[in-house]
């Protein structure tokens, strides 16, 4: 599931892109083998269920960032949008008595709306989405805190909380298939629809895309709205897992999601400069991060060192990616 378009700094070769995902899959297999040998508890149904549940959530968070990275922008407000939407959904379910499915739809639609605001601000102000989403992450989170008085919704309907307990085959959480379906949908979107292709083209080279009739601004707004909707979905999944909608579930102003959000796409080979997307890479990247986190926790390395390990992995991943593209460049210039 690799998508190659123009703009991959001299790499261009589909083979290299494919090897990125194959490499990730191999790495995951090796990691699983190591963790399973060192600690038999790793493969217990209980741990696999917990693992697959977190994995699904991290995948959606990663995909939510990915769709904006494709445009060459970024969305620091992913966590804020996720929490703000879920608090609205939680309010609808618990206080307003709206049925579960419409409440969830409302939350996702609200996430898309907040993303749309980000997109509109980025396009209209003509500044980088970094500063816009930096401002809105504070703005959305602040508005949510004011509206909820920082109180949780912890009496959510049974049918919603049960979604977090859903399991297949005794050990696969329902969250994982859901994330994979979302991934498949995005793959189809970027590969099979003209709008998806336009977003890629605009991300790779905005001027060229504009000249060939793509409405670049529209693609940016659509990508941000999509990112917001996915952020809200990730928030709903997390709330179902926690059994409550908590204002604190993405950390201070939603910053807790930033690391997983960037790790998955960057590990998977999505470029921060835009125009290149790898849905499968993002999904595998998120899987690897979850497995490493879970494995380290199981090994009693200490929960306190996990964050540092993830930081080192991100650093190693970007350095490796950079080295690879430099080598590819040299080979090309020699040939």
């Amino acid at each position: 599931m690799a998508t190659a378009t123009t703009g991959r700094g001299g790499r261009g070769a589909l083979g290299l892109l494919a090897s990125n995902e194959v490499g990730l899959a191999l790495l995951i297999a090796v990691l699983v083998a190591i963790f399973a040998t060192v600690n038999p508890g790793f493969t217990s149904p209980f741990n696999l269920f917990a693992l697959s549940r977190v994995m699904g959530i991290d995948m959606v968070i990663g995909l939510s960032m990915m769709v904006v990275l494709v445009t060459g922008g970024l969305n620091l407000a992913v966590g804020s949008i996720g929490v703000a939407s879920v608090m609205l959904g939680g309010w609808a379910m618990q206080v307003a008595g709206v049925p579960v499915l419409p409440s969830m739809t409302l939350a996702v639609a609200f996430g898309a709306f907040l993303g749309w605001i980000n997109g509109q601000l980025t396009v209209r102000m003509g500044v980088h989405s970094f500063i816009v989403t930096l401002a809105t992450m504070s703005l959305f989170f602040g508005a949510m805190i004011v509206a909820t008085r920082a109180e949780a919704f912890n009496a959510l309907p049974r049918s919603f909380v049960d979604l977090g307990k859903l399991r297949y085959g005794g050990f696969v959480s329902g969250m994982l298939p859901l994330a994979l379906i979302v991934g498949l949908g995005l793959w189809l979107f970027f590969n099979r629809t003209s709008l998806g292709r336009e977003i890629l083209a605009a991300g790779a080279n905005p001027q060229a895309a504009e000249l060939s009739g793509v409405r670049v601004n529209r693609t940016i707004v659509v990508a941000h709205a999509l990112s917001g909707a996915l952020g809200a979905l990730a928030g709903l999944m997390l709330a179902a897992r926690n059994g409550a909608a908590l204002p604190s579930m993405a950390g201070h102003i939603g910053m807790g999601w930033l690391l997983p959000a960037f790790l998955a796409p960057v590990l998977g080979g999505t470029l921060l400069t835009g125009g290149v997307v790898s849905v499968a890479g993002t999904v595998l990247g998120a899987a690897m991060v979850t497995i490493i986190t879970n494995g380290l926790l199981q090994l009693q390395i200490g929960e306190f060192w996990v964050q540092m390990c993830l930081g080192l992995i991100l650093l190693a991943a970007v350095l490796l990616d950079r080295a690879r593209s430099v080598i590819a460049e040299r080979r090309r210039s020699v040939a």
Partner: protein
Amino acid sequence: MLKGIWGSDWFGLFVVALVAGTGLALFQPAFLSPFNLYVLLISFSLWALVAMAQMVIIAIGQMNLSVGAIGGLVAISFAGSMEVWGLPVPAAILLGLAIAALCGLLNGVMTHVTGISAFVITLATLSIFKGLNIGITEAQPFYGVPDVVKAFGNARFEGLPHMLIVPVVAIILIWLLFNRMVLGRQMLALGANRHAAELSGIRVGRVVVIAHVISAVLAAMAGMLAVARLQLGQPTIGDDWLILSFAAPVIGGAVLAGGHISVIGTCLGVVIVTLINNALVLLGIDPFFVQLFLGGLILIAVGLNRWRERRLAPA
């Protein structure tokens, strides 16, 4: 002369700050109470250093997400080395500055050598520094801060907190750097146009690395002041610096693409943010509104900067 002041980045901000201050003083006499002014100056001391730390990196056209993580790591190292190893205060300060210099060196060397965007590098080092912090402290504060440090955090002279001396010296030095020194000019030139800077013989790598070291050292000073203020080595120091570190320089007229910053503007940005925070408290407005205001303020400032740029562009 008058025209120069009128057209400067900071004159409008100065008026805004003055009006806000006067308004507050009229409606809330408590604003001018010595204790309130003292509290205001304490938070100004801390925020000014944080804002300067980001501003230096904005000047070279990059961003540093790890400002808060460096401040936090230095804060706990500073407090921890005194409590656990019994280091004397000056040695602990030097250790803190050395750790910061190392962090800055890492950020600068990696962004320059690899050519990867500073955003990604500092996102990774943010997690590494914060991870080290949590790994060392296991999320528990160091309580054994020596009395000298605690006394410094509480000391005041005629209503002025002693710690104000640190940001004042830092601000003067940074102002001299950007307005009187070759290095500062080179940083701005690099931020404005990297290619042109290279062609004109500026050693880009050196400038980038020095900027990151200066940024880290400023963050370290803020971290150590926070320890003196809180009277303990809190691992969460620095967690909430990110938004403000960008807000103040942007309000002060900094262009995020690089090449243009204003030291006085940034300081006034800090003053305005501090005044708004204070107003929320004094007027009994929900403190939850702070995040909302900060976010809105950044958007307004960016919008105004863009509007001014467009207006100035044809001229």
